[in-house]
């Protein structure tokens, strides 16, 4: 893990309030594993006090580059959206406990809700041949073409709530639809999205006896395991999302205790 200043390679608007940011940071790009994240801070320093966590959505170690896919939420992300090529950002990372997938998996089902697709993309370079990427968006306005970010031999299927693009419905509707007609022998589901979606998915997968991992988000002050701030209740007690997660087995989470 490193603390370093990274240069903005480019920062592009891909959809409504969604941006793709490429950062030059050799050490991060070299070490990053699928599912990890970084803590960012913009200059000038005073804009926000704490760093902000963002998933590494893609890492290109051969170019010393990694990518972030982010949506505008508040003051830092607003400010990020106007970063120009050449600007400097402070980065801490890569952080988080990477998920070790078993060797023998047959299928990797990635289910993303909205900006939740970001960390899932990081699994594509290693697993695109086994991957099924299911993404749900509100409408075609915030639709992101994942194939453009990482082309590969995986299926990318999309749902929008208003039906303006792909299947009309949620990513979970589409997931149910999609899995109904298929048999998986050694499939693993990894999902990231709104809490309510993850809760629901975890039930569906439990019923379907599918191994399911979820990305959790909590408020992070350090992202490095120092403050015990970002905990989530699991069957083994509180765990730090930043250091023990952000990926958890859906089974170990005490879903009913998580406050919306």
């Amino acid at each position: 893990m490193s603390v370093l200043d990274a240069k903005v390679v480019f920062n592009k608007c891909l959809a409504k309030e969604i941006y793709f940011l490429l950062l030059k940071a050799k050490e991060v790009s070299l070490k990053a594993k699928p599912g990890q994240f970084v803590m960012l801070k913009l200059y000038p320093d005073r804009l926000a006090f704490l760093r902000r966590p963002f998933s590494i959505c893609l890492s290109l170690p051969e170019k010393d580059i990694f990518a972030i896919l982010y949506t505008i939420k508040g003051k830092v992300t607003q400010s990020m959206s106007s970063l120009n090529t050449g600007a400097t950002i402070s980065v801490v990372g890569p952080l988080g406990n990477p998920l070790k997938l078993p060797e023998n998996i047959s299928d990797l089902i990635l289910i993303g809700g909205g900006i939740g697709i970001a960390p899932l993309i990081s699994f594509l370079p290693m697993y695109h041949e086994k991957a099924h990427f299911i993404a749900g968006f509100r409408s075609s306005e915030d639709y992101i073409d994942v194939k453009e970010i990482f082309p590969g031999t995986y299926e990318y299927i999309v749902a929008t709530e208003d039906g303006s693009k792909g299947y009309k419905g949620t990513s979970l509707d589409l997931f149910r639809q999609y899995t109904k007609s298929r048999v998986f022998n050694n499939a693993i589901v990894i999902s990231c999205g709104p809490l309510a979606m993850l809760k629901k998915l975890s039930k569906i997968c439990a019923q379907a006896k599918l191994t399911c991992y979820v990305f959790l988000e909590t408020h992070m002050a350090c992202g490095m395991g120092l403050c015990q701030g970002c905990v989530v209740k699991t069957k083994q007690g509180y765990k730090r999302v930043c250091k023990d997660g952000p990926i958890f087995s859906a089974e170990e989470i005490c879903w009913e205790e998580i406050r919306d």
Partner: protein
Amino acid sequence: MLGRDSRLEVDLGFIKLKNPVIAASGTFGYGDEVAEFVSPSFLGGFVTKGLSIKPKQGNPPPRTCETACGMLNSIGLENIGIERFLKEKLPKIKAYNTAIIVNIFGESISEYATAASMLKGVAEISAIEINISCPNVKKGGMLFGTDPKLSFQITKAVLKESDKPVIVKLTPNVTDITVIAKSVEEAGAYAISLINTITGMAVDIERRKPVLGNMIGGLSGPAIKPVALYMTYRVVNSVSIPVIGGGGIMDYKDALEFLIVGAKAVQVGTANLVNPKACINIVEGLNQYCTEKGIERLQNIVGSLRTE
């Protein structure tokens, strides 16, 4: 070399620190986690997360939130307990060439004393810091630190059970901090550290709910620096034991302010969360400052505030 510059040495009487920069409790884990970023060996010392006799699960989340130039936390002293600390963490951290200070707390005077006794004979531990000032627990915690009699009794009880130098960490949430400072000095404390966090809260106006799961939390970071500096100044001028000051220190200039008002060393807390290299940067900054100003011993500026 960094961390080896004798100009920065501090003699607290009971321990010598290679420099006056100490990572504060609760912001440096148990000293093992941050080692991926920086070696604690560069620091004057570090204080462990607060430890209790038994493991403690802490408060319900959310436990942190950002405030203007600061943050609130309501961790609630989650910790793995002294036993596991000694078994699992100490072996990893004892090799560091730095002072290891163990922060302890309890829900009663006897729990404090027991906690201290559990650390007896552990040679790697340089000192014990007793936290009588945490706003985030219902029983004990801050209550002790606002009452001069209880502060006195806890200090005495811990000293009796301990073979280590005992530092008492004070809370700013009091009318007159010098009263508490004097009472722990009288009880025999080796040193005083301050300030712990200031009690605060934040409201989520959308949900009309407290932002923190525990409703209230402790404010830390640059926002509180002026208060911390004032309290450090007051305490320095009311006791004769060494004072370790802190609260809101982000860079070496902030650290200098505390030294100038009379703190022999400083504690750096929240800054570590924002930048794991914060402490090291401060050590480097102090070093450079000495070079630039031609200062032979940084301790010479301790208490050099001109007040005429």
